[in-house]
């Protein structure tokens, strides 16, 4: 249904006025009151002493039970069904207002009546686009006088698809590292939560950033070790300007000295900028930038490298 058709239906349902349901299965009774007070932890002795029900129990007497098939069809059900069919399948209650004209007495049987009141929307909400539907239920006593009224409002919303805010539709981070046969091991390590430092397979020299040749012995045979993940801030700059795609300024670019004997460039995060200081102990942390790319960054650490 279009939004206009939903409003049209709402008008029709409201025009039905108050629609009576079937009377409660059981009259107001002490065992159900006692059970309710016990579960709520309500020690007020007045109800059982005076033979009246806690007023907030009004709705309890006419609840449909485990097998709902016998439930009355109310003007609200058709409206909710139409909203579901139009994609507004989510539901969350927003308001419940009960007015008690008097307390229901043990022995009397209540009868509910439902009136559809209002449909407002579509409105943009934190949960998604939706309609606010409002209805009123009145419980009548055997004297046909109202015992209690309830105004109830729900938001029927179009749930966001799971894929949207999560993984699939996330745009690629605009600054992708160049990954080649010399650096692939490093990025694969980051994806697995390992900080890998290149080592020379011949002389054992550690080097970073990764490259094809050992600066010490010119060997092209390389291997790697997995760093402890601890480091010390050797130097840093705070980048304010110019803007960097995919990033919010200001951010801290640090040179981190590793106990393994190399220095690595990375962002310092999880720390107020004014508290960033040369010599501070850091620990590596891994941040997903998009579906594929993870970047190692550096956060304050209690452990000294």
């Amino acid at each position: 249904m279009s939004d206009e058709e939903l409003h049209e239906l709402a008008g029709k349902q409201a025009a039905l006025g108050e629609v009576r349901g079937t009377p409660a299965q059981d009259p107001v009774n002490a065992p159900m009151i006692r059970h309710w007070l016990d579960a709520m932890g309500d020690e007020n002795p007045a109800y059982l002493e005076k033979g009246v029900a806690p007023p907030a129990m009004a709705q309890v007497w006419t609840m449909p039970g485990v097998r709902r098939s016998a439930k009355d069809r109310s003007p609200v059900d058709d409206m909710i069904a139409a909203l579901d069919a139009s994609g507004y399948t989510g539901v969350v209650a927003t308001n419940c207002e009960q007015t008690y004209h008097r307390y229901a007495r043990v022995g009397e049987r209540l009868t509910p009546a439902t009136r559809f009141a209002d449909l407002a929307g579509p409105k943009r909400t934190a949960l998604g686009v939706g309609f606010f539907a409002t209805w009123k239920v009145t419980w009548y006593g055997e004297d046909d006088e109202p015992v209690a009224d309830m105004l109830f409002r729900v938001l029927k919303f179009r749930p966001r698809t799971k894929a949207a805010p999560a993984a699939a539709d996330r745009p690629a981070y605009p600054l992708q590292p160049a990954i080649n046969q010399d650096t692939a091991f490093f990025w694969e390590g980051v994806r697995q939560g390992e900080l890998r430092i290149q080592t020379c397979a011949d002389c054992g020299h550690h080097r970073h950033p990764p490259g094809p040749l050992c600066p010490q012995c010119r060997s092209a045979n390389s291997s790697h070790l997995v760093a402890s993940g601890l480091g010390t801030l050797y130097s840093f700059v705070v980048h304010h300007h110019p803007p960097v795609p995919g990033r919010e300024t200001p951010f801290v670019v640090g040179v981190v000295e590793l106990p393994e004997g190399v220095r690595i460039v990375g962002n310092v995060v999880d720390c107020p900028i004014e508290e960033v200081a040369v010599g501070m102990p850091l620990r590596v942390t891994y941040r997903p930038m998009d579906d594929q790319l993870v970047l190692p960054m550096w956060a304050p650490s209690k452990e000294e490298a």
Partner: protein
Amino acid sequence: MGAEIGSALPELAIDLTPTFVVSTALATMDFTPVHHDVDKARAQGSKDIFLNILTTMGLVERYVTDWAGPEAVIERVAVKLGVPAYAGDRLCFNGTVVSREEGRFTVEVRGKVSLGDHATGTVTLALAEEGKPC
């Protein structure tokens, strides 16, 4: 315990054990699975079973009558519903008397859980004898 405008009601904290969530759902005749079936609650995107609205209304009523005493007559409970009250969380009620006219009081009530306000609203009650509760 004061009942002047601005006086605060004593805090009430309720640990929302699974037993509490389930037993109140059953006592209110609400058999919707999200109030007793953890797997179904999770399948609908909730982190656990959670308190049903009839219970929230009942607890707001209990909170105010705990303070006002057995002579209080509750006339109206108007609640704005907020974040879910999940099993494992704790629901803390606070309240303040916001109006007093003859024997009729309005109390503002707030029920908070770790995620924020679960219920906020007002309760109107009448006391047969002026001067109570004090």
